[in-house]
């Protein structure tokens, strides 16, 4: 059937799928959603190809099993520890900032909100410089794990805050009114009504923050002082032994064996991120299901 015939036969115009612009839009959407999949596949493909070119894959596995795994596992544990510390610092700060920004109007608040939103887009190296100058040098924390955790906390705090603001705004005003009408104060309504209702949204922001902190290398390079190799081990741990820096350091070595270890590191990094996000998404879904009853 030609288009003209189709139009005549129904008298109601063309079905939406036949409309050119609608189809163009659908194809555009499909391409956009395929893009991350393609990029991910290319990345993995490159990894696999490089891994396959290794002289002795067997030897790599053996070495990893023997000693290399120590460095790898150690850096995974170091990463988890560092990220936990930084989230522990960033979450109360981010949620607190969001509560303030969503509170009653005060002068200068919109400026503050703009500032916060822009911070989320600042390149991470700049946070490294801030961390180096503020925590390492001005506050004399040295190239320590604490300095690294605080720097990462600064980096991810805006992510938490932006997500928490959106979550707080999505809580219906009727719930706030219900709380006030029962004689609750602003603080009581915020803590017992608004925050619990906003929790899934806040949590999704925290997940994003965790993922970001986990894969971040640039600010840690500066704060951990890798360039001068003078990082200070404390009882809390050592900022140098985290996964992204482990990979970075291995890649910088000229030996092929180190390259292989680096690839193993990247695989573990990607795998951990995927496990983390899967776990977090499932947690969030469970929360939402419960909400739907």
């Amino acid at each position, binding site marked *: 059937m030609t288009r003209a015939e189709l139009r005549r036969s129904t008298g109601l115009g063309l079905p939406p799928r036949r409309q050119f612009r609608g189809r163009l839009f659908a194809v555009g959407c499909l391409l956009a959603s395929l893009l991350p999949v393609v990029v991910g596949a290319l990345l993995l493909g490159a990894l696999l190809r490089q891994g396959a070119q290794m002289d002795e894959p067997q030897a790599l596995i053996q070495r990893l099993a023997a000693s290399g795994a120590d460095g790898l596992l150690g850096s995974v544990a170091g990463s988890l520890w560092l990220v936990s510390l930084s989230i522990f610092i960033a979450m109360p700060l981010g949620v607190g900032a969001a509560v303030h920004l969503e509170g009653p109007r005060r002068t200068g608040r919109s400026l503050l909100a703009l500032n916060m939103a822009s911070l989320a887009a600042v390149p991470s190296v700049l946070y490294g410089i801030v961390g180096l100058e503020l925590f390492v040098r001005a506050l004399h924390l040295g190239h320590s794990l604490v300095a690294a955790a605080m720097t990462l906390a600064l980096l991810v705090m805006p992510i938490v805050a932006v997500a928490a603001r959106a979550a707080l705004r999505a809580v219906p005003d009727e719930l706030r*009114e*219900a709380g006030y009408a*029962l*004689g*609750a104060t602003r603080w009581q309504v915020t803590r017992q009504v608004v925050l619990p209702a906003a929790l899934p949204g806040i949590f999704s922001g925290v997940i994003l923050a965790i993922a970001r902190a986990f894969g971040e290398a640039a600010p840690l390079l500066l704060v951990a002082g890798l360039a001068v190799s003078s990082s200070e081990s404390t009882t809390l741990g050592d900022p140098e032994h985290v996964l992204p820096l482990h990979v970075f350091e291995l890649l910088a070595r000229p030996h092929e064996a180190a390259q292989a270890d680096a690839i193993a590191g990247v695989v573990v990094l990607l795998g951990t991120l995927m496990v983390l996000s899967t776990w977090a998404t499932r947690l969030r879904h469970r929360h939402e299901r419960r909400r739907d009853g």
Partner: protein
Amino acid sequence: MEIMDPKLRIRDLSAWYGERQVLERISFDVPAARITAIIGPSGCGKSTFIRCINRMHELVAEARVRGRVELDGHDVYSATVAPERLRRRVGMVFQKPNPFPTMSIRDNVLAGLRLTGGGALRGGDGDVDGDGVVEQALRAVALWDEVRDRLHRRADTLSAGQQQRLCIARALAVEPEVLLMDEPCASLDPIATARVEDLLGDLRSRYTIVIVTHNMQQAARVSDRTGFFLEGRLVEFEDTDIMFTSPGDRRTEDYITGRFG
């Protein structure tokens, strides 16, 4: 109309949202242990009016109030009155049922007591006392038999009519003296509406109730006194029987006979 010892005495109450005046010099007395209905077309200021009584109006940005609202002879806008304390004595039920979705049915009933500090619950936050409060409040709204087996289910598993009665129970659990109801049946079906109206009959002897409604039959059925608002002014305040049989004002008559609104 002047009456002896009114529960609420409203004098020259005006209210604004920014520059827009929504209430103009409202004055009348609300008798104790009676149901007072406020009727009027949309946008006449009736919701704003009851929100001025428990000082919810001032929570809106740029909202202003002038005039007096006296509860048992004390000005609720005096500098020594904490709005939170006032709202525990003057409860409120909203147009749309708004139970706390993250809480169980039981916790919703206890929400007012818990939100304002567990100490308000007699004998601390003991479960024994809590159970008593929950049962009493749910019985008062005739919801007990329907939900007694699922007190720990989430409140949003209830139907809209049940949710609204739960909200009334939640307001009653704080033991207020006045209950403000802002079109409490607006989002309910006729059966649920009838149940809430029955409930009002049961509650009238113990609480002073002010109910805003756009449903004139409802006002005629449940209330003792009726006030008719039009464009932010009180046109008439009368015994409900008189109001609906021989209104004193031409505009009231036009409104209740359905000529406008």
